[in-house]
């Protein structure tokens, strides 16, 4: 316990710094993921479902590539640092958001889409006023899932010089200081839990009142 306190006092500012970096990498990757995967998911609902399913399977395969390998592959192209770390994490965020957006929008009752279309809604109006509000709970749970995982995986960013709490863990490994490993791990877990809680609140706030059971 004493060593833990010592480590905390000597690494205190460092810890704050690393937590900031960690958050930055995770948030940047998830925002990028939402910006790409939500429109892409909606786009997929507009093409034949066979093609869409194939595309989603393909993205699924990408996701099975070990994260360490992705980081290693990206290095020759993007070098080291924060940017390749964000891009690697972004790739992992795409699938859950994409899949949930696609499923959520597809599950919106077809008769509502027909009613909207028949009353003269443009495609964009149908997406904005019918599909997105109704698919929102499903899309949000995809985003929440991706965020929680990304915060955990962001520790690997340290491997390619991206910084974050992973730095502390790697230092702990190299210097054989278990307390440093703990110091990197615990905040990452707490961050994930907080993010999950905040996003749950956001989800509740955004879900149309009538849909909350």
């Amino acid at each position, binding site marked *: 316990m004493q060593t833990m306190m010592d480590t905390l006092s000597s690494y205190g500012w460092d810890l704050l710094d690393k937590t900031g970096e960690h958050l930055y990498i995770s948030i940047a990757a998830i925002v990028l993921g939402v910006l790409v995967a939500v429109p892409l998911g909606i786009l997929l609902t507009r093409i034949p479902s066979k093609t869409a399913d194939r595309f989603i399977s393909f993205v699924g395969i990408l996701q099975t590539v070990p994260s360490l390998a992705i980081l290693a592959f990206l290095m020759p192209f993007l070098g080291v640092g924060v940017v390749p770390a964000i891009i690697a994490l972004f790739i992992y965020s795409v699938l859950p958001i994409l899949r949930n957006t696609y499923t959520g929008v597809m599950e919106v*009752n077809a*008769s*509502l889409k*027909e*009613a*909207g*279309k*028949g*009353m*003269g*809604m*443009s495609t964009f*109006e149908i997406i904005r*006023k*019918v599909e997105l*509000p*109704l698919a929102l709970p499903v899309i949000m749970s995809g985003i929440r899932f991706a965020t929680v995982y990304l915060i955990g995986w962001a520790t690997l960013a340290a491997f390619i010089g991206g910084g974050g709490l992973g730095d502390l863990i790697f230092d702990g490994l190299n210097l054989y200081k278990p307390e440093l490993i703990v110091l990197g791990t615990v905040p990452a877990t707490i961050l994930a839990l907080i993010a999950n809680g905040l996003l749950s609140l956001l989800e509740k706030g955004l879900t*149309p*009142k*009538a*849909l909350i059971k």
Partner: protein
Amino acid sequence: MLEFKDVTKQFEGNDYPSVHKLNLKVERGEFVVFIGPSGCGKTTTMKMINRLIEPSSGEILVDGVNVLKQNVVQLRRSIGYVIQQIGLMPHMTVGENISLVGSLLKWNKEKQQERAKELISLVDLPEDYLTRYPHELSGGQQQRIGVLRALAVNPPLILMDEPFGALDPITRDSLQEEFKKLQREMDKTIVFVTHDMDEAIKLADKIVIMNKGEIVQAGTPDDILRHPANEFVEDFIGKDRLLESRPEVTRVEQIMNPNPITIEEESSLKEAIQKMHAKRVDSLLVIDGAGILKGYVDIEMIDSNYKKKNQVYEVMDTAKYAVDKNSLLRDTMYRMLRRGSSYVPVVTDNNKLAGIVTRATLADMVYNTIWGEETAEGSAIE
């Protein structure tokens, strides 16, 4: 108003066209019902009007303009649309649902709300329903809102795809009646799809019977029941219905006694008694100077008030059930028998007294059905 010229729809991968060289004219204010077995092309025909389905060849003209030459979104906003699944947006309040097309047309909030209030009063739902959500309403109430939504921006033409098909029979009945009344008041052109012959007979000015993508027969309900074009139509109508067709298609106006015995509300009770005595009846319909039905007065009311009151309007009962002269006899008969009343006054749209249907009138009807027709005029008077 609406015209089909050689309209054909061939879906890819089908051997036969779903709609084949269809020609039809619909006049302004007409209530047209497309009916036929499933797969006959009736829904396809309707959906081609607002281009949910695009015709393969031919022209569809709305007010003389080819629908294919119009902006599809604007075209749909100018045509009301009601579907069987109702399709109210579950995340919007009833008011927002009604105002949906208004909001697409960028109406301001006050105008939308005003219109929603105006409309909801038409179907006798309280105004505070506007802030509720669709799932808090019953199926019948939901479809009332579905119909109001189609009326919101006052389109001259409304398309209805089996709108009452998913409702229970009692709710369906009352909605049909309510809607027919609304349509007459608002002078809308309606294109209505159903597979229910009862519904078609009840609502239509013109029934269009379709089979295998073609029109088999088009005409008034009366025409079709009396002169079915061929065996298909006969089968489709059903033999029973042909036998019963008289009460099915006869309107109250056709059998009512147009000269009921009435008294003006300003008359004295003495005059009322004299009239009852002279005409050998025990009750009189009370009207005002303009012939508007006010109520009725019978011999018991006069007897118990003769010493205290002088004039008819002081003793009459105002709550008297009346039927519209355009309603179907079938429905009127049912109501009369259920209410156990011996007569029902018949009124026009503005509640002006037009005639009376008595139990004797009904007896004549039944007599004629059993022993064949004879001129029932005159004998229908009590």
